[in-house]
């Protein structure tokens, strides 16, 4: 009898441990998830007014020129994040990896420090740096290139996205560098030495030894950067003072979601944008992981 009771007690135990997690997941994840799906098929106006509109929200979003603009801005930003920000981060990480121990810590802190301040703070500061004629960035460009004193970085549609990319570059290069640095420090030194003894030059060592060794880190950074780029919101929002730039040049997918849900008060369309964004991020992340895995198999 005692044995049977003990067995039932043992059987129950794991569920007891899992119960808090399951409860929290149901309350804070599953319920909102299901609500968001239902919401995306509705139009709302206040707590009492909800109307089922079928796929109308999705149809509207997918044909809305503003959404297309938001997607195009987001994709351009993501491309620059991956092809400009990440190589720079890797380059800095490699420089620091070869630096002497005493200076390494200092430069690591300096390069990483922009990330210690929030995106809003960075946005506000850069909005002042980009002011025509008096902005420090404009003055710097004028002194350096004899160009750009009167540039309206945040007022000219063709300059808004570059301004956001420059700001993000300053903020995130150091952050990604830390990941790469951690990856580089775990590369087996004996492999590098062996390659050098075999006559490999610096580029060959990098391409054939270092890069394959840090590939898991690189894949992680690429996936995280892509997800981060698709979720970009606070930085352009602060930089453009709560607006989306002239001709929506600073409109990103999450900004579009925000403007639909909280400015236009259309929570249903906002939820639909959220789901479209989720699917996009999932597809891109899976593709990136798959490509990275295929390369591994091919080697």
């Amino acid at each position, binding site marked *: 009898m005692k044995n049977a009771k003990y067995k039932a*007690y043992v059987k129950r*135990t794991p569920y*007891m*441990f899992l119960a808090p997690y399951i409860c929290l997941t149901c309350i804070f994840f599953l319920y909102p998830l299901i609500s968001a799906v239902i919401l995306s098929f509705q*139009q*709302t*106006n*206040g*707590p*009492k*007014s909800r*109307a089922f*509109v079928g796929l*109308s929200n999705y149809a*509207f979003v997918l044909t809305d*020129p503003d959404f297309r603009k938001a997607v195009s801005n987001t994709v351009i930003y993501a491309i620059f994040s991956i092809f400009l920000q990440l190589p720079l981060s890797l380059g800095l990480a490699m420089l620091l990896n070869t630096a002497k121990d005493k200076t390494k810590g200092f430069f690591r802190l300096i390069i990483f420090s922009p990330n210690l301040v929030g995106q809003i703070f960075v946005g506000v500061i850069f909005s*002042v740096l980009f*002011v*025509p*004629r*008096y*902005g420090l960035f404009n003055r710097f460009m004028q002194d350096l290139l004899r160009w750009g*004193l*009167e540039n*309206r970085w945040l*007022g*000219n*549609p063709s300059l808004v996205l570059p301004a956001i990319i420059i700001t993000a570059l300053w903020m995130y290069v150091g952050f990604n560098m830390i990941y790469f640095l951690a990856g580089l420090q775990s590369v087996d030194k004996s492999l590098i030495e062996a390659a050098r003894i075999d006559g490999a030059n610096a580029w060959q060592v990098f391409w054939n030894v270092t890069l394959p060794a840090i590939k898991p880190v690189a894949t992680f950074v690429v996936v995280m950067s892509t997800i981060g780029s698709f979720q970009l919101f606070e930085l352009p929002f602060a930089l453009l003072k*709560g*607006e*989306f730039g*002239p*001709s*929506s040049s600073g409109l990103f997918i999450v900004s579009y979601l925000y403007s639909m849900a*909280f*400015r*236009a*008060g*259309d*929570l249903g369309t906002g939820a639909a944008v959220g789901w479209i964004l989720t699917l996009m991020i999932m597809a891109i992340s899976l593709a990136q992981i798959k490509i990275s895995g295929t390369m591994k198999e091919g080697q």
Partner: protein
Amino acid sequence: MEFPYGKAPFWILVLAIITGTAMMLTRKFTSAPRPDLVFIVFAPRHYEAYQKLIPEFERTHNVKVQLQQIHQRPLQTRLQSALLANTEVPDMVEIMNPFMGAFMKGPLKDVGFVDLTDRIKAENLDKRMVESRFSIWSSRGRIFALPHDVHPAALAYRRDIIEELGIDISKLETWDDFVKVAHEKIVKDLDGDGVPDRYALDMPIEGTSFFPLLLLQRGGRYFDAQGNLTMDSEVTVEMMIWYIHQTRGKDRISFPAGEGQPFYKALSDGLILFNFVPDWRSKVFEQDAPNLKGKMALMPLPVWEKGGKRTSTWGGTGLAITEQCKNKELAWELAKYLYLNKQDFSDRFAMLNIIPPLKEAWNLPAFQVPNEYYSGQKVGQLYAELAPETPPDYVGAYYEMVDGKTREVLIDGGIYYEKYGDKGLREYVKEKLRLKAEHVRRVMNRNVFLRQQEVEDSNITRGAVR
């Protein structure tokens, strides 16, 4: 006796019980009962002014009023979200124009604010206040907020430099006169580097705030009194072409000075000589550029055609009472106490330079006091003279979207002008405006709640006719 799940879960449980109990106790001891009225404002200067006035109201009515200040953007979004979620909201709020429109997306019964129309009419306030100011707080003929101000716009200029240049302000009657004088005497490259060092006006190329201001003065607007979209009207096209000419190309008369420190540097350096200044901004100048005391002056806006309006408007605050307010009569009393208090008008003007919409208050001595900053001009009198001419603006749920879309055309038109000049500009702007208006109409037509309201309204009308 041992805890059956081990030591770690035991201590986690103990910690959870202690923190939970502590939270409950703290809440019990710290949470005060809700005051009779909770009133939220966004303007720091309004907050300061009301802080002084409210104790007297509390004493005379034997009630407790809690005053809070929140930045206007979070105030709007939080209030909107709270109304949507049916959670606790303040009893009274001051809302900034044009954010009221966001609350008017559905049928009138769902606006979330008390319909003040009958109360306003009962007090004859619709006649005693500047009529045009009710338009920004109204939807489908019903008024949902009491206007705090009129905000007539004037031009503030560097009197010292203008006099040096021998410009006679009284001759700047129309905008054509203004542009002519700007070309002849103001826009100049003073150091010979090929870049002008002095411009006539501060105007951003994207038209933020200033384009709608000028459009209103010219008689155009985004919506008409019935809520119909009029963003693609002929006046908008004309206005846009004028604005593009003044902000783009080598013949432009304006410089986008931005805001904050760079703006005041440009003003102090004499880079820009004229600025659009509604009453509230005239005080901001005094406070943020004190070095220009005695060097500035104000003038009415030049007109678009002889006999036209000499002013426009920029900004506005209104006081609304939420539907959830339990003591609506008390809230209305407080609204009247704060907005119709003659002593406060004088204090408010001294503190903010803001003209009240109540016409009978304009004769108060406070408005006749010469202002040293503006070279001894009677600032109150000047704005009060302009106030009755303030054009009405009709703000609907889609106002922000329309403003954004119109200014997108302004930017695209500007880029076109820089590439091709005037050739085809009008047709280009007209077509772009038409397309944007079509887009906005498509968005407006998606609104099932407004469609339902229209059907209900038409049924009522048909019933009445029968």
